[in-house]
């Protein structure tokens, strides 16, 4: 019987505080898995949106049918002579139809609609002088509108950034609530084990030994609970339907590849947190009671 063994045994393994820690640690870990996934996914989304939209733009030409071919030719010429544009392609009718079909259904009489002509262009790394391009187009082809997608990109990137902030704040809150519950449970455990503390004092045990006996109990429960909650959270994430390779907020929430190792940090972190919170509480309470 060593000091370590006895330290594990001196606090009776009963009482609500043990269950309180076990259950809340597992619930908090479950939530933490989702908050972590949200933070990783939203960061990924912001990156994807920026990358996908940053180097593409469109020029939309709305003109009467008899002018549209002429304007298209002018716009293509302008684009060709603008530095920073790698490629410009007129979208053929079938491509346009496919694009619209996704929104409006297959039975649309496309031929009857006065659709604008779309030119897709790919920018080089540096990109064109957007303001200059807009002015030139306005002067030479009045029906052409340059759209670099900033309208879409900015709110999407902002939303993704804010989502990430939410996720990080949630992780902070989860940690704070866990610490508060551990403090509560530690005080309850010390209060309901007055006899244990009295006996240990009587035989000369130091505060450190007494505190550790309680801290071991509580932080091991926090670890076990958090491990269970993390496992459940990861299973739930795995169970979300796949989005065919696209990162999408609803179906793409989760981790990929080595990212799945990230939530494995939750149980040890929960244990360290519980250890610190219960140690501080135990020392404080042991000092208050002479």
């Amino acid at each position: 019987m060593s000091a370590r063994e006895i330290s594990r045994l001196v606090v009776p393994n009963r009482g609500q505080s043990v269950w309180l820690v076990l259950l809340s640690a597992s619930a908090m870990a479950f939530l933490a898995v989702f908050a972590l996934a949200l933070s990783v996914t939203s960061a990924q989304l912001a990156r994807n949106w920026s990358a996908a939209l940053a180097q593409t733009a469109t020029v939309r030409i709305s003109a009467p049918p008899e002018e549209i071919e002429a304007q298209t030719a002018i716009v293509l010429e302008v684009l060709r002579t603008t530095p920073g544009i790698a490629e410009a392609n007129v979208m053929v009718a079938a491509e346009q139809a496919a694009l619209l079909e996704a929104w409006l259904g297959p039975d649309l009489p496309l031929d009857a609609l006065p659709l604008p002509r779309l030119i897709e262009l790919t920018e080089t790394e540096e990109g064109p002088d957007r303001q200059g391009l807009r002015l030139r187009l306005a002067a030479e082809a009045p029906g052409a509108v340059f759209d670099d997608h900033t309208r879409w990109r900015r709110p999407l990137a902002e939303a993704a950034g804010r989502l990430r902030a939410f996720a990080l704040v949630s992780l902070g809150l989860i940690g704070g609530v866990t610490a508060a519950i551990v403090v509560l449970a530690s005080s309850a455990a010390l209060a309901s084990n007055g006899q244990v503390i009295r006996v240990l004092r009587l035989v000369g045990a130091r505060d450190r030994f007494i505190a550790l006996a309680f801290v071991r109990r509580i932080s091991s429960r926090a670890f076990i609970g958090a491990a269970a909650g993390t496992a459940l959270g990861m299973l739930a994430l795995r169970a979300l339907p796949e989005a065919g390779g696209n990162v999408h907020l609803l179906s793409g929430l989760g981790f990929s590849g080595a990212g799945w190792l990230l939530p494995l940090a939750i149980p040890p972190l929960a244990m360290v947190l519980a250890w610190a919170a219960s140690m501080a509480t135990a020392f404080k309470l042991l000092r208050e009671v002479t």
Partner: protein
Amino acid sequence: MIAFEDVAHDYGGGPLFREVSVRLEPGSFHFLTGPSGAGKSTFLKLCYGELLPSFGVVRLMDRDVRTLSRDALAETRERIGVVHQDCQFLDHLSVEQNVGLPLTATGRPLREADLSDLLGWVGLGEQAEALPPTLSGGERQRAALARAIIAAPNVLLADEPTGNLDWEMSQRLMMLMIELNRMGTAVLIATHDLQLIRFAKAQVNARVMRIAGRRLQIAGADL
């Protein structure tokens, strides 16, 4: 070793005793008697720092208890064995684990052989694995004594250690404490059992102190 200098103790309803000055020297043997409620248990609690004196100075191992840090007081208690009046065990641990606690809870080595020898000596060899609540009153007191002496303390304080024991077992425990005293342990026993005191005085040079009239008297040889 333990010294009282003009000590008084008061729980709030007037002093139980006052102007108590006494020294327990290494290797000494003392009895503390007095009617129930006189303050014998209180005196013992002052001796191991569970209570601080309302007045005067108590020195444990030459240090004023008031100046001891929490760890220093715990360290002092490693050298003071206490048999508490109401025993005080960890009820979910076996007798054996309870008895070994003064060593294991302070990180000192515990030899299994010493533990079983001691349990055999106090007649609890059979009950080593039992839980304290299943013991009789006498068995509890023997377990408490075993726990108090397992760490070979410099001082043994015993509060009514034979209160629940038959005469034969009382004598046996008394002999164990006398044996300890002969090996150098200072012993202080609070009891109102005069027969026990007489038995001990035949074996050992014991001083008898008596709390009466709120004073501590050192009784003469006549009792």
